[in-house]
Every structure is written in C-alpha cells, then in structure tokens.
C-alpha cells in the first residue's frame, strides 16, 4: 500500500485539480426528494420565484457531489481516515441541471495530531467551478491522514 499518499506527502501550498461531475435534473430531484424537499430543488417554476432563479441543487447535494470528486481525485488515493468537519462552506452560485463541475484543492496547513499519534490533519481549501468557470462552492475542510511507516 506504499503507493497511497500519507500525511508526510502533503505540504502547504500543494494543489490538486479534479473533475468532472455532470449534474442531471434527475439527480437534483432525487436528492431533494430524500433530503431537502423544498420547491426550488424540485421544480423549475418554483425556483424562478426565488433568488436561485430556477431549479437548483440543494446545497447539501453540492457538498455531497464535492465529496465524491474529492474521494475520486484524492481521498481514495490517500491513507485517509475520515474528516472532522468543515470550517466554512459557502454556496456561491446555484448548481443547475447540465452543469459540469470540477474541483480545485489547495493544502492550507498540515498539523500532527496529539490524540492520534500515527496520523495528522491536512486542512484543504476546496473550490468547485462550473463549466462557465464560476466558483459554485467554497469549502475549507480538515481531513485526517495516516503517517507513513
């Protein structure tokens, strides 16, 4: 498993770029029905009456899509052992059917853990762009990575 990225492989200022995630109307509505059944996530006309301006994905769905890109691009290639949360998340632009999202990640900080001697925290700044190069989501999130042998 030596090909996995360990805590020592991350350093401040490092950047990664991944994508892409094609957003469909079906998936927006399916997620919303289960978790966030508000009109602007289920119906285009209702969305037009809000400041979202049309059918838009639940912000929690955008977080989940971001996580999927982060997993495929980085976390499944790292000796990761989960996260502790998200320091700040901003939903900058509505995410709509037909959008194609990509993710840029920058390492803000690496820090050894006092409570987990064989792991450390890697704080990531995530920026999700749509196909118009607009920032759709900003999220700062610390992940836990195991130290190498």
């Amino acid at each position, binding site marked *: 498993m030596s090909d996995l990225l360990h805590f020592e492989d991350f350093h401040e200022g490092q950047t990664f770029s991944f994508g892409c995630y094609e957003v469909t109307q079906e998936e927006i509505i399916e997620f919303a029905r289960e*978790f966030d059944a508000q009109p602007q996530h289920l119906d285009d006309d209702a969305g037009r009456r809000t400041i979202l301006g049309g059918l838009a994905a639940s912000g929690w769905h955008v977080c989940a899509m971001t996580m999927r890109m982060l*997993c495929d691009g980085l976390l499944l290639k790292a000796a990761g052992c989960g996260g502790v949360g998200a*320091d700040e998340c901003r939903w900058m632009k509505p995410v709509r059917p037909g959008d194609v999202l990509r993710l840029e990640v920058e390492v803000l900080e690496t820090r050894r853990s006092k409570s987990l001697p064989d792991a450390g925290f890697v704080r990531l700044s995530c920026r999700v762009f749509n196909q118009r190069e607009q920032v759709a989501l900003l999220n700062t999130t610390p992940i836990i990575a195991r130290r190498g042998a």
Partner: protein
Amino acid sequence: MWFEDVLIGTKRDLGSYTLPQDEIMTFARKYDPQPFHVDLEAAARSMYGGIIASGWHTAALWMKCLVESGRGDAAPDGIVSPGFEAMRWHKPVRAGMSLTFSTEVIDKVELKSRGDLGLVKRRNEARDDTGALVFSFIGKSFVPRKP
C-alpha cells in the same frame, strides 16, 4: 415568518431519525465511497471498528428533519442559505443509532446590501440516545424582512 419575528434563543426540536446500514452504504457509494463507509471488512479493520455514516449524510439528514418538521421559518418558496460554518462530526454515526436533531437561533444580522432580507444564524445539532453531541454546525439563512 419575517426576519423581524425571529427571536434569538428560540430552540426547536426537529425530530429523530434512525439510520439503517443499507442507507449509510447507499449514500456513501454515491457520494463518499471511502472504505469505512462502504466496505464491511475494511471498516472493521479501520480505526472506527465498523461501518460509519458519511458526515455529509448526517448533514443531509439534519436538513431532511428541518424540512419535514415544517419548521424552517421558510419563505413560501423555500429557504435560501449562503453557507455554513464550524461543522463538526464529534462522534461517528453508526447503523441503528437514533439521532435527534435541533436548531437554535443564535444571531440576526441586517443586510446593508439587501434591504428586503436579513441573515439568521443558528446553531444546529444532532445528539444520540444518551444525549451526547454527535454533530453540530452554524447555519445561515436569508429571511425576508417586513415590506
């Protein structure tokens, strides 16, 4: 509910949700396929000792309980939020755990840029059967002001 009617300190119970293992794994296969969310054997060997829910699944369940409790203080066409802060997954969420969700208004901010909206901040939580804190974050939502 108008911005003017929102009272700091108002706390509401949003109900409970017991998360089955198949829902944990279905969500994680789509959105967070790390081994300790989707692979029973790998999860057993991990520091968690078994399958745990994606933290984003817990967050989505908080939203589900807010919306389904009808207590979103929403405008007729739904809640619009610019984001959140300080989200923490304090304890792993395991299959069969019953989570009880709540929301409490902690701050109100008038927006200079939008005279028709105010920003309401809430501390949102999930607790387990023993009352221990499992999940928390500071949510923000826009609430219309009285015309």
